[in-house]
């Protein structure tokens, strides 16, 4: 599909003797929430790494917003409008929530160069004002001054999301945003993702099937490095191959 925001073509990657990804064709349309599901070890995180640029494929290509980004490094893809959150919380634990997001804002192209050696960051009020707006979006307005290490797990997940948002992405790659969260936090996260989806396209990797079927516009199923099905939630739910390989255990 030519107008897809993210278009992955025949992406393959081999680790030693294991074919981690086998000629995966995959696309995400602008504006949708696209969920990627599959059993443990199916290659979901590996796939996300190839989309974000953390790993490079053996063959195949990644097109983003009409541009071939296959050989671009991770930071170049972020600058192009692709942001990711991590499966394992990956924030600066020694910094306050606000300072974490400020780092994300500061890294943006429109925030100007970070090769500035003299003016203290704390005097750059524009950075802080902008950063606050992202903490507001994820519901952390009251925690701006709290050191990230002291936030609850769910709050750290939300902070992680705020940092990704602060890069102003067109596409948000969420790698198991509900991982390790309790039912209450999960429900909040689902609401949050629904809210964010109004402004940004989302590629969601998630094990929580209730959340996936509530959120996703389209779902793709990855099993053993192969994409076995891609379609609407109903199509996927009723696909015999998917039921056999994966969903049978979950529905």
């Amino acid at each position, binding site marked *: 599909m030519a107008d897809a925001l993210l278009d992955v073509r025949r992406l393959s990657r081999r680790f030693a003797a294991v074919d981690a990804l086998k000629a995966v064709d995959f696309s995400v349309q602008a504006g949708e929430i696209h969920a990627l599901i599959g059993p443990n070890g199916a290659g979901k995180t590996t796939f996300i790494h190839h989309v*974000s640029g*953390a790993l490079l494929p053996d063959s195949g290509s990644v097109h983003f917003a009409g541009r071939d980004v296959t050989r671009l*490094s*991770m*930071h170049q893809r*972020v*600058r192009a409008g692709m*942001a*990711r959150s*991590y499966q394992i919380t*990956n*924030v*600066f634990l*020694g*910094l*306050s929530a606000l*300072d974490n997001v400020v*780092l*994300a804002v*500061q*890294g*943006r*192209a429109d925030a100007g*160069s*970070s*090769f*500035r*050696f*003299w*003016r*203290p*960051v*704390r005097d*750059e009020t524009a950075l802080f004002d902008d950063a606050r707006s992202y903490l507001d979006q994820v519901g952390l307005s009251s925690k701006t001054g709290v*050191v990230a290490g002291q936030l609850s797990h769910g709050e750290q997940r939300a902070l992680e999301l705020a*940092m990704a948002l602060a*890069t102003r992405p067109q596409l948000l790659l969420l790698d198991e945003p509900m991982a390790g969260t309790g039912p209450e936090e999960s429900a909040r996260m689902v609401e949050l993702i629904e809210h964010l989806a109004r402004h940004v396209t989302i590629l969601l990797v998630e094990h929580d099937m209730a959340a996936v079927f509530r959120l996703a516009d389209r779902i793709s199923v990855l099993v053993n490095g192969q994409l076995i099905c891609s379609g609407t939630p109903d199509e996927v739910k009723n696909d015999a191959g998917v039921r056999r390989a994966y969903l049978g255990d979950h529905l």
Partner: protein
Amino acid sequence: MAFYRPASWQKPLSLLLLCAALALPSALAAFGQEFYIGFATRVLIFALAASSLNLVLGFGGMVSLGHAAFLGAGAYAAAICQQAGINEALLAFPAAMGIAGLFALVVGAISLRTRGVYFIMITLAFAQMAYYLFISARSWGGDDGLPLNGRMTLAGFSLADDAALFYAAAGLLALAMLFFGRLAEARFGRTLQAIRENETRMEALGYPVFRYRLVAFALGGAVAGLAGALLANLTGLASPNLLQWTQSGTLLVMVIIGGVGYLYGGVVGAAVLLLLEESLVGVTEHWHIILGLLLLAVVLFAPKGVAALFGKRRG
């Protein structure tokens, strides 16, 4: 490690120390101890060199075992400048910084593609290559080094007097510390420290991590070059020994004793190490043993360094 944030007393204390330093030459002269002015200058110069390594190691998280190469490059650059007829420090010192910085840029551009132990080894290898290059360079004195033909002038004032060189070193160290202090809290320093803490996360926020590391590495090299130029003026010689790996090790030890990632870690470390060396050398020729024990004590009881004992550092 946490991000740098100065304690409230740091600024007044450093100003106080600066005033004390300015009074030192006259005080020593009053007691007839002029000999120690040279020693004090040596402390200041190594404080500058160790601080430049602290930028790379403490703030940038890059464990370089080749930092002395840039110290040596600066010393030789100054001596070669003088040979070429440039006796003015306002020209020779920036030239030394430029040469050392450029050298660091090249070394960094290659070394920073590696991590961990490989980075340590490759920086060491570059420094040893430079060491053997200078040893074999006949026209620059080979083994014997390149002697200076007297000290330089700074803005027309002669540095021949020990006190004059001391003031020059104190002024340059103060400027460097002011710069490093501002840098640490500015965008560049925050970025650098965040990269030290979590490189992947910074990549994922869109930062070209390699470029920030490289600039910090080159900046550290340039300031080490300035220290080298001062040292050449102090000792009257650009010696190949300055580039030896043991010298890089000494700088590392200074930073570790003083406090990795603390603004004044390099200054404190250089002062402690050189003062100990100076006082122990008179007591026993086996002073290295006592030094070793001290290093053990620091690692065991003050693993964050001496500077850390005086204040907390939070995010």
